[in-house]
């Protein structure tokens, strides 16, 4: 399995090279010489990547070789774009990258066996709900850009909701694996539909409802959408019953309709989605500017540093993909989507390779987060769906999301390493690994 790590190293160096080159290109139009701080940033970037690579070598030597380089490349493209938009933010982002790497390292060190997580499912549920509720707490909760998603302690603001996503997916995976027999067999029939008993579905619906309610209260529509999709997909994956998919869809349509009725900000989003042109100077400004960015970029883009992506509001965060589309064109935009798709593909492969149900469902859940989150934000800025603010994984500016993404990366690598080890060691082990079997 040593070759896997060599592949990872080489792919990773390619990603680092692309990032360094991009960073030079971004600075050239203004300064026409190689930026002075290039070596500083590139050294840090290379250093962080090599450390991450060594961590994988040490703690998950048999894991999939493509995930880390893909993450590095996405992260690098994001860093280049952010430094082009706002050099100050880029400096902060370097700090967040270091924090993300630390979280990645920590995940690999602390989570030595993925099945350990399965045991503490209710602890994770509690922690997840707590993380969701934290921004609503007086004193530390903060409202930024109209959404109460933030917790400020001292000078550092972060979004605990990003952590909640991972925590709740752990709970859902563990709970569903435990109850999937009961859930898929069902106890009552309604025509062709087989309904499970409320007793088994109850806690799930409750957790679901609470998380969505909280997010609606915090005006974080993107995360609500994400949770619906992720839990719906996990429920379907665990039970293989289309009825759950339909139920999730019905719940979603119902929830969306109610939210549309009740909340002005939801109505605004839908109106500007359907036709932003009459309000192009007001509510529709962001989306219209985003479209202009894509149109101006065209097929091959204006070139890094040669467009005007600073005209798009929130370009480093929600609209980072529009900035990429303007300067790197359709080619660059599709390359980013392809990289995310490869990441997601590897994630699903890891899920399929897993032999035990919990890591299988857990890996699938984590992967769906990445895929759906990408769809929600890129779909939002291109007007495929109404705009809801979530980050583009590994690319958008923002510490909480980056740290959470690196934790997801660590967990996927952990599961992948477990998979490879299980296959390799099947003959040597005669008994099942120790640890409580799910009740």
């Amino acid at each position, binding site marked *: 399995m040593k070759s896997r790590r060599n592949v990872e190293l080489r792919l990773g160096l390619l990603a680092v090279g692309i990032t360094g080159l991009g960073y030079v290109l971004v600075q050239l139009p203004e300064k026409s010489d190689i930026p002075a701080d290039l070596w500083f940033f590139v050294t840090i970037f290379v250093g962080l990547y090599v450390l991450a690579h060594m961590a994988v070598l040490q703690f998950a030597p048999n894991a999939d070789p493509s995930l880390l380089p893909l993450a590095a490349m996405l992260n690098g493209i994001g860093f280049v774009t952010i430094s082009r938009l706002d050099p100050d933010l880029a400096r902060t982002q370097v700090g967040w990258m270091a924090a993300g790497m630390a979280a990645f390292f920590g995940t690999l060190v602390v989570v030595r066996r993925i099945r350990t997580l399965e045991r503490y499912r209710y602890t994770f549920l509690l922690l997840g709900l707590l993380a969701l509720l934290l921004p609503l707490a007086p004193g530390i909760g903060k409202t930024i850009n109209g959404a109460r998603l933030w917790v400020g302690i001292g000078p550092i603001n972060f979004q605990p909701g990003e952590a909640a996503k991972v925590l709740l997916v752990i709970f859902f995976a563990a709970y569903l694996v435990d109850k999937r027999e009961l859930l898929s067999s069902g106890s009552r029939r309604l025509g062709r539909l087989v309904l499970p008993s409320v007793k088994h579905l109850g806690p799930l619906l409750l957790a679901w409802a609470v998380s969505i309610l909280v997010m609606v209260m915090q005006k974080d529509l993107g995360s609500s959408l994400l949770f619906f999709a992720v839990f719906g997909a996990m429920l379907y994956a665990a039970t293989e019953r289309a009825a759950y998919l339909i139920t999730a869809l019905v719940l979603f349509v119902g929830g969306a309709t109610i939210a549309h009725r009740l909340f002005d900000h939801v109505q605004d989003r839908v109106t500007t989605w359907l036709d932003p042109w009459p309000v192009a100077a007001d509510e529709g400004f962001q989306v*219209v500017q985003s479209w202009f960015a894509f149109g101006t970029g065209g097929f091959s883009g204006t070139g890094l540093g040669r467009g005007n992506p600073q005209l798009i509001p929130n370009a480093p965060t929600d609209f980072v993909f529009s900035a990429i589309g303007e300067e790197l064109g359709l080619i660059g935009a599709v390359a980013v989507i392809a990289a995310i798709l490869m990441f997601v593909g590897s994630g699903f492969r890891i899920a399929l390779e897993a032999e035990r149900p919990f890591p*299988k469902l857990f890996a699938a859940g984590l992967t769906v987060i990445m895929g759906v989150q990408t769809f929600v934000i890129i*779909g939002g800025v291109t007007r495929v769906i109404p705009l809801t603010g979530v980050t583009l994984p590994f690319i958008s500016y923002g510490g909480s999301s980056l740290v959470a993404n690196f934790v997801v990366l660590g967990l996927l690598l952990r599961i992948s390493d477990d998979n490879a080890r299980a296959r390799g060691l099947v003959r040597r082990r005669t008994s099942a690994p120790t640890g409580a079997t799910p009740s």
Partner: protein
Amino acid sequence: MNRAIGRVGTAVIALMLVLVGMLTYLQVIHADDLANDPRNVRAALKDINLPRGPIVTTDGEVVARSVPVDDGTEFDYQREYPHGNLYPQVVGYQSFVLGSTGVERTYNDHLVGRDPALRLEGIGDVFSGQEAVGTVVLSLDHQLQEIARDALGDQRGSVVALDPTTGEILAMYSNPTYDPSGLAGHDTKQINQVYKFLSALPDKPDLSRAYRERYAPGSTFKTVTASVALETGLATPETPYPEIRSLDLPLTDAELSNFGGQSCGGTLAVSFRRSCNTTFGQIGLDLAEAFVAGAAAFGIGDVPPIDLVPEAALSIGPRAGTFQDEQPQFALAGIGQGPVSTTPLQMALIAAGIANGGVIMEPHVVKEIRDADGDVVRTIPVREWKTAISPVTAQAVGAMMVSVVEDGTGTAAQISGVTVAGKTGTAQTDTGDPHAWFVAFAPAEAPTIAIAVLVEHGGSFGSEATGGRVAAPIAAAVMRAHLGR
């Protein structure tokens, strides 16, 4: 679980493909439209720091110019509009926040010297250090523009005058108006404030009423009704129409009355001079579906191809295929009410078409482009837009319009020593006092000016207003100045 996970994976891939599809639409199929949208300021931003030529009227008045500044911002030039609120609806503005409009946008490439004709001429300038920017010469006459403004006074409305033989706009003004200087500054916040303030005003000063707003044209539209009647052979100027007070509208209990409830009629020519609603309502009914094509020949339903951004609004007339069910609408269309709604520009083009032997020329506000030495490097071509009617019909309608000014409803437009052809209009509105209209051209024998004047809700005369009383004198003032009388 694997089967379901596989399906979820397929679904995620499908979602990504949707995104790629949308991106292809935005970045390939729809890319040019988005890149060139007037609200996309990227083009303006690219040019904001380039030297930029002036815009001058045909009589040499500078209406837009760039001056070098050093105001501590990143900008090297400030665009100035010396005549403030006299030209914004034609010249537009150059704003790095809002994008550019008007001539500033349509002739942007000429102003910054990107036109190849300027490049060629400018080769010599490279050595002399002169910038190869172009001077855009408007067809508008500063004197006429000022007279239009003064004649309209503080009444809300529009004046559009053009040369019927070339389509060159000679004056185009509407009130209320605004000073574009506040939008051409270097302070984003201030520009946005000014823009918001302008957009929120109930009077809508930033609306170019002359070519972007539609109104019921009232009796001025009888020029079209009469033209179509003659052109289709439905009537001659001598065809008699009954002397009646009102016309029964088919399919309803309603009636169409003459102005002031009077009895009105006679031959077509007499009915035109007296502006009998009953006659022209009847013609609208008699024309039926033929009315639709006849109006379309005058450009109703088409966007006039004027060289401005945002583009002109199209005007609307009787709707095709509706005569069977909506006959009263055709009677109303005959007198320029009901379904008919036109811009002042469109009415000026109709007058110009009749003046020009039935042919409407493409309207344009720019005459030519000159280089820094003042040599003409490009002349805006004169092109036909519509052939509305035959020269014979144009001659006959022109003669009827002459009688309107000589001893009909438009005597206020008389100019001593010049034969003026005109038609008044007093259009009923749902929202208040009637709109006063006047369309005209002069001299009738060999027209050099065609004009449309609209005064919203009768201006200072209010409910007492008629086109003849309120709008005709304004048209006369502009035509008098143009003809040197």
